[in-house]
């Protein structure tokens, strides 16, 4: 091989690759509105992205798979956790992870910032990225199913989606609010009180730590039936 051939390889290789890459970049920008729904990229979402940067979330959490590997991926976090859970975790990590082997710092994120962050994560969750990460796909599907037809859902699944962020049930979920089986055996509420309690806990039990749940009365009713069914009837043998 001569020096001239070597130079030719260099220039042809580099320029071909750069040309392909620049064309792809142009096309990427053309197609981004479709893949990321830029029509829903509101001021609130952008403000949420700034909050995400401000508290350096990305150096512990990955998002779209990039960033720190210390904490879960946040791409589909909105579907995995739901709005209330994200808010509780962000504002009270010390409480939410009291029993956890891994801690999250108390960052002092304000109420407004939390709402912005949730909007951002909701928008990110809708990016069409070929169903990645694979393990979160079930949460996305469950959320969409729950939204469209709450009455047809498998009850255990529904309860874990809605309540599993704080409560445990058969060793699943996060152990902050206690085990649902234990709770079911302890409470004396009737069905309607339980529904009211989920939607606005303070109205039933002032001072209780549980936050209001963003569920429709129909969904709350399904959950209430399920919880009440957990009460183990004491056999009275006479």
């Amino acid at each position, binding site marked *: 091989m001569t020096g001239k051939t070597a130079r030719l390889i260099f220039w042809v290789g580099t320029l071909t690759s750069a040309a392909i890459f620049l064309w792809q970049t142009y096309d990427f920008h053309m*197609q981004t509105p479709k893949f990321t729904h830029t029509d829903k990229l509101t001021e609130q979402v952008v403000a949420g992205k700034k909050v995400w940067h401000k508290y350096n979330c990305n150096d512990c959490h990955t998002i779209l798979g990039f960033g720190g590997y210390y904490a879960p991926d946040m791409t589909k976090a909105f579907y995995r956790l739901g709005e209330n859970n994200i808010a509780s975790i962000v504002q009270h990590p010390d409480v939410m992870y009291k029993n956890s082997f891994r801690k999250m710092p108390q960052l002092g994120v304000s109420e407004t910032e939390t709402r912005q962050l949730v909007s951002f994560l909701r928008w990110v969750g809708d990016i069409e990225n070929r169903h990645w990460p694979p393990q979160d796909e079930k949460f996305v599907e469950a959320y969409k199913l729950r939204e469209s037809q709450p009455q047809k859902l498998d009850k255990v699944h529904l309860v874990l989606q809605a309540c599993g962020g704080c409560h445990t049930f058969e060793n699943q979920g996060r152990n902050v609010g206690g085990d649902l089986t234990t709770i079911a055996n302890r409470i004396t509420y009737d069905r309607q009180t339980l529904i009211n309690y989920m939607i606005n806990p303070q109205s039933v039990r002032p001072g209780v730590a549980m936050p209001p749940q963003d569920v429709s009365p129909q969904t709350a009713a399904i959950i209430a039936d399920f919880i009440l069914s957990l009460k183990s009837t004491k056999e009275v043998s006479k």
Partner: protein
Amino acid sequence: MMLIEYQSQRVSLWYFRLALVLFILQVIMGLWLSINYAFTLPQELVNVFPFSTAREIHTNVLVAWMLLGFMGGTYYILPPECGRELYSPKIAYAQLIIFVAAAVTAVVGFLFGWTRGKPLLEIPFPLNALIVVAALLFIANVAMTIIESKEKSALQWMLLGGVTFLAVMYLFGMPFYKNLNTDYYYWWWVIHLWVEGAWEVVTASIVAYIIMRVTGVDRKVVEKWLYVETGLFLFTGIVGTGHHYYWIGAPDYWIWWGGIFSALEPLPIVLMVVDTWMHVRERKNPIVNPLTWYYIIGLAIYHLVGAGLWGFMHTLPPINYYTHGSQVTVSHGHLAFFGAYALLNLTIFYFAMPRLKGINKYQDRLGKWGFWITTIGMFILGLVFGIAGILQTYLERFLDIGYSTAHLTMMFWFRVAFGVGLVFLAGVIITVYHLFTIKPSSIPPPEPVVTPAANI
């Protein structure tokens, strides 16, 4: 025999010293990160010095010491390559002070939460502006030295092209992007096009220079290889950026282009290994310092394994679907960065620092210990992260076990990583100590057949 032909080559010494100090800081931060994984820290400590802060120091210090090594290396090889003094040693020092001041302020700022919150590019805007000023001074100094030199060589242009490419890409990381997919699209223009583009060009040029000087192999042969290697690096590396675009919400063809081009990325590295080996075989000069050779050969092989093979496996789309964003990436990142760039910097340091002190043949017993401890230590560390990563991938993505439960298994592996990391730190300290206190050997060096100066 003159060891340094030009006085202005001395500016590089301070670049090397500061780079080495930052290297130690980087490793200490790495150890702290492994403690975060291995044990449950109290909430109070996590609130004051969270993982994220330690990680931004770990990664930014990495970038800083790499760049200091490259810049110092460039300043070291430029005068003999151009046959003249540097355009301005004063600019070189001013640039160093600006760069280091910005880096130190950034690290202190991180401790107080002054961050842009963008991994590896956390430095806030005012400090970024300073970095840009330093980069412009550097490029101007290099360009002026080359323009005013009598002899023009391919190596000079390659080096200038590499550092300019590096600086231009940095600019794409500075704006605030509203859209997360666009943000990450351009984030990789910095990160990927650095490590698999600009840095490779700089590496290839510096290694070509050192090989030419040490072996006495003809310039024409070395430069021919340099063209082919960099051509292949850029051909595969530029479109290869696509392997980061599989899951960010981008068009389908990235899977193909990214997959195929990144599969080709080991090719130029194989070529580099072959090239290094051929030059060692065809050398005209006797080996004066075996340790420098350890580093050159170690660099070539480690580069191939860590960046080439590990990267190859990890970037194939069907595998990446499962391993993306897991500890497997951590394993690849450590082996690739150490193999390609930490060893490159150490090669430059071992080539240049003794000469800057007027030493031709040096005592290398301690340095050999450092070499073996760090290279083997990092290899084991890569394996440990790899095992943790495969375990995580299997538990989380195949068995569908929750993230935290899967991560519980990390605790054991990161305790192992912490232990290995301690050994690695010892190796680094030995190496740095040896470089700082390098002494001439009592055994006289063999006479070179072709004096390096004859090749200029």
